[in-house]
């Protein structure tokens, strides 16, 4: 039994984002300018019609500005009555004359206000909503909502059960894509709905005590490969995003259906559950055209997308719920420890590339099969970092959850001439020849063994000067342990007498952007039968090794994280390597020498350090 849930969300925006700048300059005095309102409401009405024509129910997220518009309110009430649409609230679309009168600010992003202002705005928006509709919303959202904001909402309005809480991988890439002017620096969250931790919205909650009390929904269902290495606003279940990315031929966009179908297929990795969301603001369907597309094409793309959902519904392949209904359904049988996993395949560039994504309360990571299963992203959710954003906080706009490994921001396997990049992989060494699995493209398959998810990679061939070995990697993910078991197995060798060293390593750092952070104070430690070693990071290129290793670890106080590796047997050597200022990384490793065939099994763990 599989269930593919769908949330379609619309919002009546009185000043579409594309007119925000005019509004700030007083050129479009929002709710008093009739042509702007008329166009915006027309688009909202059109979106609603297209959904209903395809028998899809929606969640109408009322913007603050729209609460002052009788027509917008009337449409919402009518569609709620007639179609069963949910009327919710959003913190997008705050800006209007009434808002500026009350808050004396042109700020448009709820997460960037000071905490005091966030509280006042929540009370004002929810108060106005109740005044207009006679009840309080049970769903809300924005492009980002930090845990502190959601905690306040839950404290004051405990019936709220769902929120659009992040945009998946909108961080520095989205910022660059927008000519460094779009401040959604929100990398590091899950790609599908989750129950957030009350400490940090990006992290799935560990248990009921940690549960923030809502189900969080990421804005859009995005291409997990293209968006990891490209603009979030090009590749997702948002037809006009796809037009922005120019992923079409003529006026046809099969890519939209391909994304939907790949999300549907996630049911096979997640015990029958799959999810999709579509949320297009009116500004994306401007009558004057947008992103090199005229209005007819903008409209067609929306109609085609919704028609596909409608067809799936007719075939019994999708269940369209409102946000609050979905939150109830999601919580029904979801254990806190259950990970969200998927083996994503390229549907854009024509390659056979696969990437495996995993998120649970301990970590989020990505394995790249184009690099022999190398880990190219690792976020230590176990640390549950309290990291508020907005004016008056340390980070202000940087709302991303920090990584330990992000191979695109911090080089990965390939560096220019010197140093090391952030990646977790394995090297095979014989007589001075070194081959890294990052250089070995392969494919993977997924299976389950009780509560263990297993990613099995097809064997790869490693060619040394005088012989060849076959190597297979297997990742076993034991639910609720916060550990990854990694087996590197030499399954064949053309020279059974040849000795090969298997060197499992992780080169890591920490940060939220491409730019290096200060590693001073990071501790690197080895513990084994033959001794202990420990250093505090000082960029001095020091190295140490201990035989009969029990554990190698890095304590990274800046992100309150302990990163460790342990082996399955004592006849192995552990080591650490300090970096330098030109290579601001630390490396932990465990290595073992085998003759002919053999294997090295290690476990990687991330924990909260304090």
């Amino acid at each position: 039994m599989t269930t593919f849930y769908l949330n379609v969300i619309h919002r009546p925006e009185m000043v579409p984002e594309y007119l925000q700048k005019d509004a700030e300059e007083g050129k479009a005095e929002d709710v008093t300018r009739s042509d702007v309102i008329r166009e915006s409401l027309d688009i909202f009405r059109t979106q609603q019609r297209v959904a209903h024509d395809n028998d899809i129910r929606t969640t109408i997220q009322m913007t603050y500005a729209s609460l002052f518009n009788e027509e917008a309110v009337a449409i919402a009430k009518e569609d709620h009555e007639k179609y069963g649409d949910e009327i919710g609230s959003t913190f997008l679309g705050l800006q209007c004359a009434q808002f500026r009168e009350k808050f004396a600010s042109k700020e448009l992003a709820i997460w960037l206000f000071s905490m005091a202002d966030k509280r006042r705005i929540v009370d004002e928006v929810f108060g106005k909503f109740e005044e207009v509709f006679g009840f309080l919303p049970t769903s809300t959202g924005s492009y980002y909502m930090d845990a502190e904001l959601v905690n306040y909402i839950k404290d004051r309005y405990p019936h709220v059960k769902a929120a659009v809480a992040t945009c998946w991988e909108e961080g520095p890439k989205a910022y660059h894509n927008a000519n460094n002017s779009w401040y959604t620096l929100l990398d590091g969250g899950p790609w599908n709905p989750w129950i957030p931790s009350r400490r940090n919205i990006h992290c799935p909650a560990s248990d009921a005590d940690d549960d923030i009390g809502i189900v969080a929904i990421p804005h859009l269902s995005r291409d997990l490969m293209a968006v990891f290495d490209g603009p979030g606003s090009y590749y997702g279940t948002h037809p006009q995003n796809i037009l922005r990315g120019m992923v079409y031929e003529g006026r046809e966009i099969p890519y939209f259906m391909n994304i939907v179908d790949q999300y549907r297929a996630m049911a096979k990795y997640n015990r029958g559950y799959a999810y999709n969301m579509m949320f297009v603001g009116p500004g994306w369907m401007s009558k004057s055209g947008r992103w090199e597309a005229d209005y007819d094409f903008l409209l067609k793309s929306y109609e085609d997308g919704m028609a596909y959902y409608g067809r799936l519904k007719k075939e019994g392949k999708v269940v369209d719920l409102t946000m609050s209904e979905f939150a109830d359904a999601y919580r029904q049988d979801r254990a806190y420890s259950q990970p969200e996993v998927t083996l994503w395949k390229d549907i854009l560039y024509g390659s056979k590339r696969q990437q495996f994504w995993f998120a649970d309360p301990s970590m989020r990571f990505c394995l790249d099969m184009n690099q022999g299963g190398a880990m190219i992203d690792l976020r230590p959710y176990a640390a549950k970092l309290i990291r508020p954003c907005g004016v008056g906080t340390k980070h202000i706009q940087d709302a991303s959850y920090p990584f330990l490994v992000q191979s695109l921001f911090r080089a990965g396997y390939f560096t220019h001439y010197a140093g090391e990049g952030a990646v977790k992989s394995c090297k095979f060494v014989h007589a001075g020849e070194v081959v890294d699995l990052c250089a070995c493209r392969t494919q993977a398959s997924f299976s389950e063994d009780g509560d263990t998810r297993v990613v099995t990679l097809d064997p790869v061939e490693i060619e040394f000067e005088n012989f060849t070995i076959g190597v297979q990697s297997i990742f076993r993910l034991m639910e609720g342990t916060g550990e990854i078991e990694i087996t590197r197995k030499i399954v064949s060798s053309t020279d059974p007498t040849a000795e090969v060293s298997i060197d499992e390593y992780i080169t890591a750092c920490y940060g939220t952007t491409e730019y290096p952070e200060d590693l001073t104070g990071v501790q690197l430690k080895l513990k084994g039968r033959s001794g202990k070693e420990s250093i505090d990071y000082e960029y001095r290129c020091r190295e140490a090794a201990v035989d009969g290793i029990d554990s190698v670890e890095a304590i990274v106080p800046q992100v309150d994280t302990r990163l460790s590796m342990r082996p399955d047997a004592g006849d192995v050597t552990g080591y650490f390597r300090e970096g330098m200022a030109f290579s601001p990384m630390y490396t932990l490793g465990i290595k073992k020498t085998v003759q002919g065939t053999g294997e090295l099994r290690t476990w990687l763990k991330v924990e909260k350090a304090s």
Partner: protein
Amino acid sequence: MAQGRKGKLNYRCPRCLMREIDMDMLFDNEKGEYYCLRCSFFGPEAEVLRVNAEFRDKYLDRATRITDF
């Protein structure tokens, strides 16, 4: 020189697009060409469309319906 104005369909600079930067161009009515404030690209609409088509070339599956997952 004439004042640059917003052109139709807010064409982005195709060269900036190649490096995934969305940068709206201005249109010079006198010369009948678009130009970029960031990267020095200039050209008529036909040139914009030609480079845009090049941008799309990387999407080998842009016209392919994929159903095998």
